[in-house]
């Protein structure tokens, strides 16, 4: 089946990101297609490329990136939720006159329309809240 995940919890604050990653890995291991993870509300913090967790803790940002690269999962970050929280890719940094970048590929800033789109297009949408 085609799945999508909606993640709304911040990493290192709530278990939501851990639960979503565990579920995502189980999905692909079972042969399902995970089309996209959509990051909204505090879930957008999962895209913070500068995250430097202690060595003995899971690196969630890297874990999402690995999942995306291995299984062609789109990592879609709500642009409106991200901008106000200080998460900008290079294009948005230029557009807002900021001298720094806090989001990079495979995470992509995108509109809420994508959430509606994957929600409708996929067979299953599973939400992980904080």
């Amino acid at each position, binding site marked *: 089946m085609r799945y999508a995940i909606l993640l709304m919890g911040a990493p290192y604050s709530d278990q939501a990101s851990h639960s979503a990653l565990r579920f995502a890995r189980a999905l692909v291991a079972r042969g399902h297609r995970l089309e996209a993870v959509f990051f909204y*509300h505090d879930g957008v913090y999962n895209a913070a490329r500068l995250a430097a967790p202690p060595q003995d803790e899971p690196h969630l940002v890297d874990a999402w990136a690995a999942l995306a690269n291995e299984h062609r999962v789109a990592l879609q970050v709500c642009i409106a939720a991200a901008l106000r929280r200080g998460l900008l890719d290079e294009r948005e940094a230029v557009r807002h006159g900021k001298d720094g970048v806090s989001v990079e590929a495979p995470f992509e800033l995108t509109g809420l329309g994508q*959430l*509606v789109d994957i*929600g*409708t297009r996929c067979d299953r949408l599973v*939400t992980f809240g904080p």
Partner: protein
Amino acid sequence: MQEHHDDSDLLVILRHAPHGSSWLREGLDAALVAAAFGRRVSLLFMGEGVTALLRGQQLGPLGQKGTAATLEMLEMYDIETLLVEEQGLSRLGLSSDELMLEVECLSPSALARVLSGHRLVLTF
């Protein structure tokens, strides 16, 4: 009611009060975008979310807008199905005629039917 809840619909459940968090605004944003993309959208106000519909809301502590103005625009977006959890209202001692918009009150059994009747459900 049946015609509102066919299989092409999106149900957005709003469970949070205005100003206390961004949940209400972010849920409404999702609803507005979906409507702009041509989806038929229903809103369900549950729990504390029913307070989003109270009259007389004002700016937040640092002057931020809140959500009342957005709710007033729903009709422009063709979002016309506004459902309210009856129990959510009564728990706060409110009645539907005190609300700023016309809504349909749902008994507990109707609530479950509404959830089953939508193709996509987003909880905020």
